[in-house]
């Protein structure tokens, strides 16, 4: 049985399709990433899977339980870290953990043992009796990760676990998650808009854009699936017309895309293409004004599958963000 099975799951808000009939399965023990820009529908998807939002249509099973019909069984068997930092600032780390352990009905003795163990695992044992308002963002995130595991779930959902953290804290969270996964034999489903995070943490990645899954595979295979293994980004001055055609004819070039005078060249052999490109420019009396050569990254995968960069998009204000919404009153 897959840990999470999603079938034609969809969510509409009025005319707006947030999640558009998505299918996928998360295997036991894997780290599965939903990668996409803000507003792609990742959070809506994870909220449906964690029973926070009823789907408009389609079904999903988490740990074998239907997310609508057996919502409470789903809740009992999953750990969830919502996107917002939801620790109580005035309470201590220990108290925050204890309250959630009680919400899951864990008996006292086990509760104390599990909390001590988890605080140790996320490196917060020293701060157990300090109020959370004294914690840095990274510490709070780690506390929330520990809190989400207090009832020892097998499936762990994290909605953008490192958004808003500094680079050092992000790495610390990643290490903590990898460690916890090993120790506790967890299946992890996380959303992120960081390419490096998805690349580093996930066994498989689903690229989500405008409510649809546009690609799903391991980071390696995703990178291999797009043409070329290097990406050259070049700009020229004095380049003649139909210059893109010339570039395309260079050795080992798989694909050329021109965006605002910058040419993105996918190459099977970066060094060889680079040398040929410089010679071609000299022959055409064009000057190379900038040049970079990189290995293919998930960024390139993302651009390839969605046709655009991770970019901003407008979304309707949520109730919590809007200055004054009376309709729910």
């Amino acid at each position, binding site marked *: 049985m897959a840990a999470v099975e999603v079938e034609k799951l969809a969510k509409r808000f009025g005319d707006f399709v947030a999640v558009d009939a998505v299918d996928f399965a998360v295997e036991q023990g894997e780290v599965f990433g939903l990668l996409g820009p803000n507003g792609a529908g990742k959070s809506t998807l994870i909220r449906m899977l964690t029973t926070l939002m009823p789907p408009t249509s389609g079904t999903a099973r988490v740990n074998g339980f239907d997310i609508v019909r057996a919502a409470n069984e789903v809740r009992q068997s999953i750990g969830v870290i*919502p996107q917002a930092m*939801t620790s109580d600032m005035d309470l201590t780390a220990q108290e925050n953990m204890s309250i959630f352990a009680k919400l899951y*009905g864990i008996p006292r003795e086990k509760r104390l043992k599990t909390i001590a163990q988890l605080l140790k695992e996320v490196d917060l044992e020293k701060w157990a009796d300090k109020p959370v308002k004294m914690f840095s963002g990274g510490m709070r995130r780690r506390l929330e990760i520990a809190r989400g595991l207090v009832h020892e779930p097998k499936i762990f959902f994290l909605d953008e676990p490192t958004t808003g953290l500094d680079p050092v804290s992000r790495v610390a969270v990643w290490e903590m998650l990898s460690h916890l996964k090993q120790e506790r034999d967890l299946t992890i489903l996380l959303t992120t808009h960081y390419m490096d995070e998805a690349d580093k943490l996930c066994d498989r990645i689903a690229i989500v854009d405008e409510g649809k899954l546009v690609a799903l595979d391991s980071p390696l295979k995703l990178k291999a699936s797009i043409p070329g293994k290097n990406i050259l980004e070049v700009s020229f001055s004095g380049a003649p017309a139909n210059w893109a055609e010339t570039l395309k004819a260079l050795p080992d070039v798989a694909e050329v895309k021109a965006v605002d005078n910058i040419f993105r060249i996918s190459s099977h052999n970066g060094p060889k293409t680079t040398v040929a490109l410089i010679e071609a420019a000299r022959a055409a009396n064009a000057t190379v004004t900038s040049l970079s050569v990189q290995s293919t990254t998930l960024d390139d995968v993302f651009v390839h599958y969605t046709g655009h960069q991770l970019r901003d998009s407008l979304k309707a204000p949520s*109730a*919590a963000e809007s200055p*004054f919404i009376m309709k729910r*009153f």
Partner: protein
Amino acid sequence: MHRVWAIIERDLRRFKASPVLMIISVIMPLVQLIVLGYAFGGKIKDLRVGVVDQDHGIPAIRLKEMFQAVAANAKTFDTIAYTDEATALRDLRDGKINGVLTVPPEFSRKVLAGANPRIALMEDNTDQFSASALEAVFGGMLVPYNSPAIARRTTAAATLDVVEIYPYVPYIQFLLPGVAVLAIFVSAMVGGGIIFIDDKARGLHEGYLVTPIRKFELILGFTLAGAAKAIIAGTVLITVGSLIAGIPDPLNPMRMARMFLLVVMTSMALISMMFLIMVRVSDPLVPRAIFGMLNTVLYFPSGAVYPTNSFPAWMKAIAVVDPFTYAVHGFKELVLKNTGLMAISGDLAFLFIFTVIAMGAATLLFRRTL
């Protein structure tokens, strides 16, 4: 100057984007105007006066006819006939009637004999406004009674003896019950309104909702926690307030126990009402914006500051369903009259039923999902 304009522009642009707050800030004083305008100084009507006629003579009957004329026209009071004074006084102490007018046995004889006839008005002086209204109207009635169109042969001007059945109640004591309920209300508003919605907006509830907790468990938990805070506020206020206002024997343990019971029931009723109002709200500004309005609409029609007898029908209708009314009445009985539980059993029953209905409705309306 550019910088000043920038500040002004930003503020006005925000106002344009959400004018509701501004609208509320206009509506709120209007609500105050209307509610307070009718809450104070209205003509007190429909007081209930028990009449005990121990005389049955013609002059007494003439007096009673006069009362009935007032009851039918000015409607300041209604008369209720009692055959014995003891029953009337008991009803007066239980708050069923506002005053007892006794026409003593020798009244007619004294009128005819011109021997200084007297009638007695015993009044519930815990409500000074109603008591003064009664004194004024009865005192006033004796003037035409004493000066009939045709001059009498005997000089028999009847006088009114006023008996206050409780020790003198200064306004600070009259106000204390309402203020105690207000303290509980403020605490319910902060705990059940502002903190609840702030936690919700910050996503704290999302953390609860992904656990297997049930709707009713959540609502009951929120209510009991909010009530605990309100109970502390109410208990402190009624105790300290009794000392400040000079209530006789303020620390009497039995009275304090009865007051605590009423504080608990009032807290439960007000906090569950607050959750019912806030159950679908997610904007943190809403509880702050409606705070003053709720306060005005619930507090002033309840009889906390002025007797409900003077109110127009719509305000009396609010008073009937307003938990404040029953809480204030209960505290008045306990604080000003030191009555037993029987006198406030109706208030306690209303507050209990109100709590059950409000919590039930809040649970039904509560959304387990986002």
